[in-house]
């Protein structure tokens, strides 16, 4: 199978508003359909990298290409899921899930805010069913659990049929069983929808479970991409295997290495 390049980060430099440099001449590539995790401690700039990929922030120099096109603003085919607070508090689960479709309807197929080809009329109901939230479709986000909120956010993103899914600490505020359930679901959906997946996390266990490829970020400034490959077949069973624990240990050691540089 010939893979195409999905993300190409080309020699970017990015500074915090206070002037602190986060990335300097940093390059990194992601192929189509790959599952990546960006792993690093708090404050290492991993969320910033994700926002750069989402087109919500722009590098000072260098460029980011997604599917060969230079990124200047959020791209319609990229989905973004954040840890929390991503849902409209005044809208029900169903209305939240429909938000992306509504925004596309609002602009029409202009190629900037939504894809250039006319969007077929889509119904969120199958996605609500698929994610097990049709029962609570008429509830407001404050009245449902954290796991259900993230399921709503996933439904809202996937109904737009993205090819690239970016997630920023999507499960870190959830309890362990809910988190593991959603991690399994994320991998299932990634394969099923042929998504390119980039998940940002500070959790070594999550990185070892979700990432076929893991980008390690230590303390800034980041100049080179430290990458660890995970060659084991990933699935619900993998979590119990010795290979998984070995990878966790390996990641821990590596993370300490890049952090103390």
């Amino acid at each position: 199978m010939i893979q195409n390049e999905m993300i190409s980060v080309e020699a970017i430099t990015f500074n915090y508003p206070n002037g602190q440099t986060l990335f300097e001449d940093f390059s990194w590539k992601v192929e189509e359909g790959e599952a990546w995790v960006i792993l690093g401690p708090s404050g290492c700039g991993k969320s910033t990298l994700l926002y750069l990929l989402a087109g919500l922030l722009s590098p000072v120099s260098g460029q980011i290409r997604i599917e060969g096109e230079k990124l200047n603003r959020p791209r319609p085919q990229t989905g973004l899921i954040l840890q929390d607070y991503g849902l409209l508090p005044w809208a029900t689960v169903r209305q939240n899930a429909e938000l992306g479709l509504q925004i596309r309807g609002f602009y029409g197929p202009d190629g900037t805010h939504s894809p250039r080809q006319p969007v077929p009329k889509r119904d969120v109901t199958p996605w609500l069913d698929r994610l097990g939230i049709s029962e609570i479709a008429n509830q407001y986000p404050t009245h449902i659990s954290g796991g259900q909120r993230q399921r709503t956010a996933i439904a809202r993103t996937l109904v737009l049929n993205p090819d690239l899914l970016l997630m920023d600490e999507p499960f870190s505020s959830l309890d362990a069983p809910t988190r593991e359930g959603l991690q399994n679901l994320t991998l299932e959906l990634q394969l099923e929808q042929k998504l390119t997946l980039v998940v940002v996390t500070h959790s070594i266990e999550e990185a070892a479970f979700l990432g076929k490829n893991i980008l390690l970020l230590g303390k800034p400034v980041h100049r080179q991409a430290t990458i660890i490959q995970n060659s084991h077949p990933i699935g619900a069973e993998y979590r119990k295997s010795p290979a998984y624990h070995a990878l966790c240990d390996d990641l821990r050691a590596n993370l300490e290495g890049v952090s103390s540089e």
Partner: protein
Amino acid sequence: MKPRSTSVDLGLTVLGLLLVWQMAAWLVNQPILPGPITVGITFIQEIQGDLPEHFLVSLWRVTASMLLSIITAVPAGLVLGQSQRLNALFSPLIYILYPIPKVVFVPLVLLFLGLGDLPKILIIFLILFFQILVLVRDQAASLRPELIFSVRSLGAGRRALFRFVYLPASLPAILTALRQSVGTAVAVLYVAELFATQKGLGYYIYLNGSTLFNYPAMYVGILAMSILGIGWYYAVDWLEKKLCKWM
């Protein structure tokens, strides 16, 4: 969420107030404090006379000021709430103007704008405008960046953010501002209607109390003005229940 009173509670409270009023009327035993029954009878008589017209004129003035302040203060508040730079520019001005009791401008506005409804509407508008502006601005500014980021990632530009995020987010702030200021608005309406007009409940109360010495009719005017204030208060309450179901 604040507890809402049932209609039984409200009915009992009104009854209690009427009782206190009647007892006070008996105790004072002067024409300046007629009892609720006398006032009630006068109310029925006055409803067949000029009272409805005065009521409607006052209702129009308050309602027009409210609408005018909503359509101007909400967009202004949203813009200031979204733009830190503009907010930094204007907030000292708002900081100075906001606490000034606008009612002191009544004579001034009347001198400049003269007769008619406009000066009265403008005075109430001035009060409501700042209340709504400040609440909507703070509401818009307090929206979490995560929310804005995730809606932007769905393709929303400035216009869609306004339509799908900022406007619905500011709805409770608008209604809170209206509820907080409707009492003040009616109070200022009274003051404004003391001058240069022969229409409105303020004029009606003043005329009956100080010129005609028709005290029961004066109380009818006070009652009508209270109904105006309470009516708007409940209307806003009802709107909030309808429009802000998630709260």
